[in-house]
């Protein structure tokens, strides 16, 4: 655990990729495979799930630090990270905790879940007393989840590849799917023999770069080098049919089971050794795609009821073929994969399994016009894919481009501020914006991103000096600052005071030129509603 905590500290200390990679290699070279397996698990972004209720952790930390609970909460507000707050307020312990990472997880963390509260408490306190700040902090990070240390999966893959000599693509592929943290799986991961296979294992997803102001459409080259299709607003998925079984993976590498029965049923008609890349969309087997908020009704449902199945049917829009007759065809050009995809789906043609249509016109100006109509089709814009490109791993520049429609924008007045987390801890960086409803300002969006670090510091200072009221962590400020807020969509919502909810709101720019009275009105906002349908609320 001490070695892993040192790795964490080294990773945390630098923003330089090479130093991170060398820290990782240094760790993997000395680590026992069982520890390396758990390190891989955590650094890939996995977490243990809830081991102890965080409320209990807060209570024990306050007791151990001999401070009242409210003072612990105030400290947490400033630090912005629960694990770190615990590490800091609890007086420094000794160095007696000598378990390895794997022992810590398997003997202390995982069994903790099933213990009675009193035993959870005594074990946790014992570990706090036997660890110094650094180790205690990492221990708490593992216990409370949310383990982020600036290591992307790609960086981890590069380090593992350098450490083992195994090609990055092979490492990436072996890491896909559900990772078992055992010494055996780590040894398999770094095994130089590359001829392996597991039925459920998905391929790494190919991701697109955005066409925007920085990189205009003209810079992409000739239009006839690309295929164009709608960029659907659904859930990206990889549909695998191997050895008579079906596996549907999300882009976050979660195996989606029982959530999309229509798609699983349709996949049964695919021949063994088929892997499709596509988008899950709400739509009847024939007919238009429904808006995303309809699809949202089915997300997160463990069991889908009959009524919902009927109201919100789903289809899998396939847009790529990665494996055919058991053969990995990702290195073939898009044009050839597309032909094989068309041939395959023509042959089997199950309902609920559609092929995404390519645009017939492909000249840039024609595409630009089609793009303008995206919202009517419930699409986010267009996808442009190089006809001669292979299916790449991750976000490789130049193969896939997303050309999204311009977002809606509204000028909002900043009315509340709240402190951020992580890098923005103790800075007021999370804001609530309002629009005018008559003489009143009604909140319509919370936005966290879009300002530069310097601007955030300016706003932070403004909030500290212009607080009119504090409710817990939230500061209410004198309405003064106006900012332009962009968002993707707008729907009716009973939960928000303004009666509408924005999707992906973010700050475009700080309108220094505008007064609060120049901000937009609720009527202007409501004019941007996606579809004036009945409100749909999630529980």
């Amino acid at each position, binding site marked *: 655990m001490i070695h892993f905590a040192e790795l964490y500290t080294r990773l*945390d200390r630098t923003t330089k990729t090479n130093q991170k990679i060398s820290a990782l290699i240094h760790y993997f070279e000395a680590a026992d495979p069982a520890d390396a397996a758990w390190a891989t698990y955590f650094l890939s972004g996995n977490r243990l799930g809830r081991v102890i209720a965080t409320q209990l952790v807060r209570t024990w930390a306050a007791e151990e*630090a001999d*401070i009242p609970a409210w*003072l612990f909460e105030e400290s947490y507000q400033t*630090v912005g*990270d629960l694990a770190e707050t615990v590490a*800091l307020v609890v007086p420094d312990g000794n160095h007696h905790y000598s378990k390895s990472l794997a022992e810590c997880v398997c003997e202390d963390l995982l069994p903790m879940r099933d213990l009675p509260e009193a035993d959870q408490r005594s074990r946790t306190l014992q570990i706090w007393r036997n660890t110094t700040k650094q180790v205690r902090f990492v221990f708490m990070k593992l216990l409370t989840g949310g383990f982020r240390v600036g290591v992307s999966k790609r960086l981890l893959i590069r380090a593992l590849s350098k450490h083992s000599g195994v090609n990055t693509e092979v490492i990436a592929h072996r890491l896909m799917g559900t990772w078992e943290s055992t010494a055996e799986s780590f040894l398999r991961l770094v095994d130089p023999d590359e001829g392996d296979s597991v039925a459920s294992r998905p391929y790494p997803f190919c991701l697109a770069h955005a066409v925007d102001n920085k990189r205009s459409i003209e810079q992409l080259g000739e239009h006839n080098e690309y295929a164009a299709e709608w960029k659907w607003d659904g859930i990206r998925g990889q549909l695998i049919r191997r050895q008579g079984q079906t596996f549907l993976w999300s882009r976050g590498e979660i195996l989606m089971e029982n959530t999309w029965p229509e798609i699983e049923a349709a996949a049964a008609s695919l021949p063994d050794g088929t892997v499709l890349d596509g988008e899950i969309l709400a739509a009847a087997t024939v007919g238009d795609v429904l808006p995303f908020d309809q699809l949202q009704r089915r997300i997160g449902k463990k069991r889908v009821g009959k009524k919902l199945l009927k109201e919100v049917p789903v289809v899998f829009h396939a847009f790529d073929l990665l494996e055919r007759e058991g053969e990995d065809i990702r290195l073939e050009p898009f044009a050839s994969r597309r032909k094989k995809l068309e041939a395959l789906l023509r042959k089997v043609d199950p309902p609920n399994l559609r092929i995404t249509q390519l645009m017939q016109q492909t000249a840039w100006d024609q595409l630009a016009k089609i793009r303008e109509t995206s919202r009517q089709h419930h699409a986010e814009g267009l996808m442009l894919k190089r006809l001669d490109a292979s299916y790449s791993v991750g976000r490789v520049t130049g193969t896939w481009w997303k050309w999204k429609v311009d977002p809606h924008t509204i000028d909002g007045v900043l009315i509340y501020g709240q402190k951020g987390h992580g890098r923005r801890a103790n800075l007021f960086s999370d804001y609530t914006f309002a629009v005018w409803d008559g003489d009143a300002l009604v909140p319509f969006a919370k936005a966290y991103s879009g300002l530069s*670090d310097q601007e955030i510091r300016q706003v932070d*200072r403004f909030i500290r000096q212009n607080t009119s009221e504090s409710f817990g962590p939230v500061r209410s400020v004198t309405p003064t600052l106006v900012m332009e807020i962009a968002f993707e969509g707008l729907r009716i919502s009973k939960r928000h005071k303004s009666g509408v909810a924005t999707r992906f709101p973010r700050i475009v720019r700080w309108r220094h030129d505008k007064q609060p009275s120049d901000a937009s009105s609720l009527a202007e906002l409501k004019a941007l509603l996606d579809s004036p349908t009945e409100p749909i609320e999630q529980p």
Partner: protein
Amino acid sequence: MNPPLTYTDSGLYCPAGDFFIDPIRPVKRAVVTHAHADHARPGSESYLACAVGKPLLRMRLGSESDFHFLDYGETINLGGVNLSLHPAGHMLGSAQVRLEHKGYVAVITGDYKLGHEPTCQSWSPVECNLLITESTFGLPVFRWPPEETVVRQINDWWRDNQAKEICSVLYGYAIGKSQRVLAALDDSIGSIFTHGAIEKGVQAYRDSGVALPDTKHVASAESKQDFRGALVLAVPSAHGTTWMKRFGQVSTAMVSGWTMIRGWRRRRFMDHGFVISDHVDWPALMRAIRLCDPEEVWVDHGYSDIVARYLNDTGRKARAVESKMSRIEEDQPQSSPAASEAYQ
């Protein structure tokens, strides 16, 4: 009995003696606790401060200002108010202000820290009826590690960088912090260079008789100076500017109490943070209050609401007296290095 002090738009005021303490605007008579910019502001008609800080105050406020100096412990009477200054341990010449009016004693801590170090006289408790304390680090997450541990870390970091043949750049507040760190550096490792704003402070410290390792001013170094293996003391605002280019490959570190917080460290993109502060941490703040044993505490500068609430909870009368100006983190990198060079 009523405290002989009140808050005004210009800051803390003593009506009986007709003077302000660390006023935020120009006033007739200012009592100044120490030479930092947020306490010693220009424009007042006269200044009263501790004699030990003379060179630093002249540097900050210009030698033309009308100064009156007191030694630590020396008392003067201003309109029936007995005023004396006592060591605050924050930096060279920093003082607590003790006021006695009709038998009622108030002490204003200014910025202060407990413990001993060679660049300034150590804080000593002053018994009082009213204590007005700062609370810059008034949260239980702030517990400073032992200074010798951190000093060892700094010297080890310098040695490591030297072995890698890169330059070590150590950021700290120009006056006070940098000189304190300089005094702790092991100058047998290599050469120590200073940023202009820091060099001025180093000179002022030397003029006051504080022994410090030899330093070279970066601006007066030769144009082809090789900085590999050397250590540069710089102001935080120089981080990431063209001024840094001359040093070649660098490892950067910040010396500040704020580096205790990971988020604070990370958003400044520095490689290391060393926790050395010139303010009281949580345990020291509580200890200082116990030692001065006041009937009432006013809490200013920092987490005043929180500290006041905690004191009330634990049976000591307290209130927050924060002004709008005070809740700004110190040591924040300024917007431009040129501005800060002038400012410091």
